[in-house]
């Protein structure tokens, strides 16, 4: 793995019940960049993301996180790899019975030796970093969908990972809230140096924050590079259609 690579996917084949959705794909995510996985509905974005975080077992290939292969890793080795990154899910996946502070403090409680007052302070600090300062006592059901996604980012950042995976962070959000989430990602990337791997099909987000993208279609990668360059000089018909229809819909 090269020095600037934080994630490297090598010849990955992934799918469900023996049926491959993605075949033999390879790419690399560089340290500190905002990397987006694009594609239409059913193209395998979430499948790829869930294989990258070790949630689903890959059918073949390797996923190196910080140089260690998560595919097939077990026990403490797997736990060590999992601690290197945070994940947010499409629906936020906050624990409904806990307030935001407790949600964020949960990984700190389980994985660190910090005393309780330190955990509480740190949880509030993380919430403030995502723009939810002072909301720690709220339950997930008492805040909006956009705030829930921000809180989920705060929880994913609790252990100071250098890498965050976000699955469709803008889905179901209004444009203003979605733009706010984009600003948050950009600010965390710039200020904390966090690497982001984001599965999305929101064209506005892609063009606003992505440093590099891969585009999935038909079980493989059909394009890779700077999204603005791909928009201006599409390499194939699918890429052209993706950006043209996205732009028309946005207009």
């Amino acid at each position: 793995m090269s020095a600037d690579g934080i994630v490297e996917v090598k010849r990955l084949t992934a799918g469900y019940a023996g049926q491959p959705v993605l075949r033999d794909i390879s790419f690399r995510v560089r340290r500190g960049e905002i990397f987006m996985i694009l594609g239409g509905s059913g193209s395998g974005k979430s499948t790829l993301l869930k294989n990258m975080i070790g949630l689903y077992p890959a059918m073949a290939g390797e996923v190196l996180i910080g140089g260690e292969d998560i595919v097939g890793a077990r026990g403490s080795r797997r736990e060590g790899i999992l601690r290197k990154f945070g994940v947010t899910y499409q629906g936020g996946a906050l624990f409904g019975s806990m307030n935001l502070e407790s949600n964020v403090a949960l990984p700190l409680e389980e994985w660190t030796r910090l005393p309780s007052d330190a955990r509480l302070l740190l949880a509030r600090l993380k919430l403030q970093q995502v723009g939810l300062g002072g909301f720690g006592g709220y339950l997930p059901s008492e805040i909006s969908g956009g705030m829930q996604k921000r809180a989920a980012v705060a929880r994913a950042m609790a252990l100071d990972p250098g890498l965050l995976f976000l699955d469709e962070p803008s889905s179901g959000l209004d444009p203003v809230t979605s733009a706010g989430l984009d600003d948050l990602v950009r600010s965390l990337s710039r200020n904390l140096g966090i690497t982001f791997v984001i599965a999305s099909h929101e064209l506005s987000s892609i063009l606003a924050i992505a440093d590099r993208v891969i585009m999935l279609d038909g079980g493989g990668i059909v394009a890779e590079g700077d999204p603005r360059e791909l928009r201006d000089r599409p390499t194939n018909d699918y890429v052209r259609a993706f950006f043209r229809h996205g732009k028309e819909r946005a207009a």
Partner: protein
Amino acid sequence: MDGDRSAPPSILRVESGETATTLHLSGRLDDETVAACWHRALAAAAGSAGRIEVDCRGVDYCGGAGFALFAALEEKSEERGSPMTIVGLAPRFRELFDAIDRRKLRVSAAPDRGRGGWVGDIGYVAAGRAGDWRAETEFVGEVGAGLVSLARHPRRLRVREWWKIVEKAGSDALPIVGLISFLTGVIIAFQAAMPMRQFGVDIFVVNLVALAVTRELGPIMTAIVLAGRTGSAFAAEIGTMKVNEEVAALTTMGLDPVRFLAVPRVLAGIVVTPLLTVYSMAAGIAGGLAVMMLIDFPLSTLMNQLSGALKLQDISAGLIKSFFFGAVVAGVGCMRGLRTGAGPAAVGDATTRSVVTGIFLIVVLDAIFAVVYYNIDF
């Protein structure tokens, strides 16, 4: 937490002077190293005679835990009325720390969930119960009207879906109802046979089992199994539909959720419960007879005794109840499902409440039937 990790290297050195206490921090300020020095750093700040200086010239990484430590030290120094300064922190970390609104770290707002003390609590509970009663009464009325309407227009019943409900609530329940009823018959016969044998009347165990199983235990055991199995399934299924806004979709399509979801299920409950009850009665009696055969009574004697002991009236008494039990179990399950609140926890709550309410109402109804049967000599 991994308890096997070795102790992290100390990152803190405290230098106490007359006018200032200096905390020299070095290396990585991450959760592990900060956890190791948290209490010592705060104690040093609390015991400081003068101002507090945090020397970060040796710090090469500062994570969230480091910022939390700075914020806690700052709070301590403010409590004591002496200033705290951070020196030598790399600009990129300094910038991040300065961006934190430390006042907001000390408070955590929560929406006002107060109800005005215990008086308010009583009021809320009373109002909630009143609302429940109203909704329950309305539901009974709506289901009743729905059943009447269905009797007048039977083609409105979506037979294929209804048959699936009948299958799940009825034939799928045969093994568990049969096993529980058989074992109940076995237990009663065993418990009764030994003391009755002492008086030479053990043949009357057959009468005891036959009466107990047909008039009481058959209907009750079947209804309880249905409450735990079918009523809860109705509540969970409809509750999940409510959470997923499927019930709202029905309403906006102009379809009444009670007619569409509850009425077919209540009808299924009314149809399958008596059938399962008959099956339960047979299994219970078979259990009792099996025990009697084990203690050397010939089957012909037992059948002769049974035919004399069992009257059609006993079976009817049990069957009449079972219609009502079926309606109650299915109705409560549907009602709890339709009254599910928001979130996944609400579905669990609705399911639990459907079982508890269902069993409670079965017992209450059974007591009412016992009094009525006694008074009409049935």
